[in-house]
């Protein structure tokens, strides 16, 4: 356990210590984060964060957006994973605010790379991403696009992507059931933090399910562009969707373009089939009902998701 974690745990254990985390966040927001963004020429309002549940279309959304702005810039060439990562090179929790390193820091793992000028086609200064819980202190003024996925397919996808391929993982799971067990609390906390933030009306947040995004990418890319205060060019939206297809990405991967260069130990493709309803290959109706009860205890209705 890190020193920072020990301090946070100690603070939680003493009377009144639960506010310690909030104080640390407020202080770092005012004393570090705002200036850090300003020094990197980023206005908080013009920062778009893809705050997503893992395996829920983060990179697909990035690819759609980069292909769209690339077309707006007049290019006819489709963007692949490598170019996408050049245009959007930063992780919010690594390059802008390592909130999990509070209170002692370091508050960023490394300084952000300069975002591509292309993002200005969407009236933005930066598009970055994070698989963190909703950050009410740091994201109060920013644009937050949240992608999530039905938790059963999330478990299957995470199993296929990570646990099946990496035998060296210390917490390696042998099937999606174990993955869901391992990630249950994290998934619930993530999902609820964004859902609750959306319900308040205090934050600029747009939630889109992975299932809806992949079933209707043209509609949803257009909606994201509109939400950001722009008028979408429908022809370019269609072209961006075409350029971001799974087949094209897999071809680009084979030619050496990594979708997620941070996933260093990944073997094979970053993407699987992306299909909805893969959970049915692993979970029985009985399993479904059991998980449904557990999720319900956390305020989440499993059958409200798009399951097939």
């Amino acid at each position, binding site marked *: 356990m890190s020193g920072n974690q020990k301090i946070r745990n100690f603070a939680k254990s003493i009377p009144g210590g639960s506010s310690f985390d909030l104080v640390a966040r407020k202080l770092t927001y005012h004393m570090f984060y705002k200036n850090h963004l300003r020094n990197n020429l980023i*206005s908080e*309002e*013009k920062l778009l964060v893809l705050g997503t549940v893992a395996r829920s279309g983060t990179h697909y959304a990035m690819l759609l957006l980069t292909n769209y702005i690339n077309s707006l810039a007049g290019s006819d060439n489709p963007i692949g994973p490598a170019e996408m990562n050049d245009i959007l090179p930063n992780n919010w929790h690594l390059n802008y605010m390592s909130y999990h390193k509070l209170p002692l820091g370091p508050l960023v793992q490394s300084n952000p790379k300069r975002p591509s000028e292309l993002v200005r086609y969407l*009236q*933005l200064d930066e598009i970055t991403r994070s698989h963190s819980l909703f950050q009410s202190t740091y994201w*109060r*003024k920013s*644009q937050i696009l949240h992608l999530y996925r039905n938790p059963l397919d999330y478990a299957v996808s995470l199993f296929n992507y990570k646990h099946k391929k990496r035998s060296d993982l210390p917490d390696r799971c042998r099937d999606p059931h174990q993955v869901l067990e391992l990630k249950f609390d994290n998934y619930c906390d993530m999902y609820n933090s964004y*859902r*609750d933030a*959306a*319900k*308040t*009306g*205090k*934050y*600029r*947040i*747009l*939630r*889109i*399910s992975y299932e*809806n995004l992949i079933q*209707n990418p043209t*509609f*949803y890319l*257009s*909606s994201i562009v*509109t*939400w*950001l*205060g*722009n*008028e979408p060019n429908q022809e370019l939206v269609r072209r961006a969707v075409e350029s971001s297809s799974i087949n094209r990405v897999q071809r680009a991967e084979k030619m050496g373009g990594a979708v997620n260069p941070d996933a260093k130990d990944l073997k094979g493709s970053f993407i699987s089939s992306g299909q909805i309803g893969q959970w049915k290959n692993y979970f029985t109706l009985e399993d479904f009902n059991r998980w449904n009860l557990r999720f319900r205890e956390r305020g989440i*209705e499993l059958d*409200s*998701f*798009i399951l097939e």
Partner: protein
Amino acid sequence: MSVVRRIISWGLLKLIPSDALSRILFDLKLLLSGLKKSELLILATITKTGTHYLRFLIAYYIEMLSLKRMGSNYYIESDDFIVDNYFPNSWHTSYTFIRPRKKSTHLLKLIGLKDFPRSHMKLRKYAWSNVKVLHTYRDLHDQAMVSWHTKYACDAVLKEEISGPEDLYKQNKKDNLGQLESFKNLETNNINHLRISFGQIFNDPANSLALILQWLGEEPDMELCSLAADLAQKTPSILVGGGEKWHRDNRDHIDYKMLNSFIENNRATGAIGVGGVLASQLADKAESKC
């Protein structure tokens, strides 16, 4: 009582900036009504850009969702007046003490809300802080043409006030552009606002409804989104961007033959692009002036 309220409001507006005054009145109204800001969804639209289309979609959705959850038959009939009964309030009157606030349908709780008032105005940065605001818009030339045909040309009284679509466009341009631009601005903090174009609603009503529900923090039931979209097709006036109560009702001074002719001629396209001629005329005039 209504006259007294109007006089008081008029007097106060002379003393306090409109946004600040409406914030005070809004907060007071919420307090007296026992409502939280998070329980409201304000539908702030440019007129004739899908206000009523969205109201119908949401009304049908919550009605069917309620029945589905109860295990009842949720295949309902269309109802041209469902929105008037379900969502009776306008924000600019019911939340500023100009008119009494009426009770909206309790079914709104199914999507985490208690009221769904509407208004045609710019984004109110101060008054609407911490509120969810849904904004619809469309090409302003199309808007002027639809407005002319569905509000003025068919109304014996109003027709005398405006000479035609061009006049209407010019008269409303500043206000409509102000509304349009205010919702494009990303620098508005503390308000979660969603822009949605009439074209999106018209071309894909089911997904537009699903988008709104996700944005509100709900999981959309896609079957019900599709059914709501189907039911909405049964009210033709909303399909071109209209749908005011008197479009669905009967009023003495309205030429319904003329109104319905415009609606029928344009329901297949949503009247999208109908303002092209007007835009060309205005461009030609601007060029000849140069």
